[in-house]
């Protein structure tokens, strides 16, 4: 078993080293503060290596690590302003090198991948439809907490989920995530009409 493990590990490590060297050599004009984006964290490494299908031990390690990174609102209130969440869900602004210096707050870009408000027809399908998400869950407060966690860090729930870790990466603020939770979970939100 040990011999097989070593045999499998060597080419993978060599491949990974080759890959890192190619990446290092292919972004020579990147500013130092941007170069960090090319370096993978442990979770990105594992999800790349296992092509988003990690074995149980690796998946458990990801879930534990990512869960530990979630920060909850100090006052315990998870629901913000659904109207602000509605605007955030539309905005795909932020994080590109053409977005520097920032001209607006980062957006959640939810519609790139999810259906939400039935009135918005320009929605993507990379993620599941979230239409009537709160209504279908009877607006339960435990569900609001689950939505907060899924936005803050989807990999705390599904190891190697495709969705960005919007809270843990600090792409969105706690207040913005609360507004998105309200957009998905509030009875008044167009998502639930």
């Amino acid at each position: 078993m040990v011999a097989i493990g070593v045999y499998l590990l060597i080419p993978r490590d060599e491949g990974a080293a080759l890959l890192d060297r190619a990446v290092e050599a292919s972004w020579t004009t990147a500013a130092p503060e941007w170069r960090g984006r090319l370096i993978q964290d442990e979770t990105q490494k594992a999800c790349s290596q296992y092509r988003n299908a990690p074995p149980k031990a690796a998946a458990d390690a990801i879930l534990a690590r990512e869960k530990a990174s979630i920060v909850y609102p100090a006052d315990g209130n998870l629901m913000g302003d659904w109207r602000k969440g509605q605007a955030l869900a539309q905005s795909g602004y932020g994080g590109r090198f053409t977005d520097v210096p920032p001209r607006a707050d980062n957006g959640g870009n939810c519609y790139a991948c999810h259906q939400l408000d039935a009135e918005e027809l320009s929605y993507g399908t990379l993620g599941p439809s979230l239409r009537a998400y709160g209504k279908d869950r009877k607006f339960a407060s435990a569900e609001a907490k689950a939505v907060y966690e899924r936005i803050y860090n989807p990999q705390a729930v599904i190891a190697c989920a495709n969705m960005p870790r919007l809270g843990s990466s600090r792409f969105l603020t706690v207040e913005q995530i609360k507004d998105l939770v309200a957009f998905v979970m509030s009875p008044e939100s167009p998502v639930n009409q």
Partner: protein
Amino acid sequence: MPARPTIVALLLLVLAAVPVAASDDTEKELEKYRQMLTADPWSNPGLLEADRGEALWKQVRGPNKASLERCDLGKGPGKVEGAFAELPRYFKDADRVLDLEARLVWCMQTLQGFARADILERPYSGANQTGTELEALATYVALKSNGAKFAPHLEHPKEREALALGEALFFRRQGPMDFACATCHGDTGKRIRLQALPYLSKPEEARAVVGEWPAYRVSQGTVMTTQHRIADCYWQMRLPLVDYGSDVTIALTIYLVNQARGGDITAPAIKR
């Protein structure tokens, strides 16, 4: 030329009509729009870039006062016909695997004597600009393989190494969004907003789209090369600007071309 603004205006009208269509009809409307894009192949502004590229190819230019007519794209000096179908490939003189665009830079440097920094000063055109020299040249060379099928070279160890690298890169997650190429191009029938996404690890889907590039993009009013297409994906992935002709873009190109092996080259296609 006068046909172009009319076509663009017409297509924008169709695009504008899409959001008001009933949800069930969205895909049908999009399909109608796609058909309009390709209905008359001679209305393709990408062909103008190919013409410009051909003139540039034959023009005596640069410090060495030479044309590119002795440029070896892999099938021998000056042989353009069918060359794009076999790129990227290993070039002994460069001791490197090069894609079409990196090879064009190589020839402009070695044959015409241009400085690399000058060639790459403005590699990509902006919206509604005339194509850059590299874009025009790439479009011309690709058009000379229009109708051929991709037949990538994988005999040389460096070609196989580049392919393995490209495959690993396709699945490499990185950056603030954790995106890999596979995040958007790893499943069938997915969309970003209304934009359909090809599943590029699936040969049938890769064959349908990889040979379309360099392509004329209606939304940009200009041609976009494979190099630019990949650089734009990395921009969307929130990474810095990837180097022109880098190991990463060449490796991804050889991966895509290998997925599209046997697929028709339809460049320059007309895209959204």
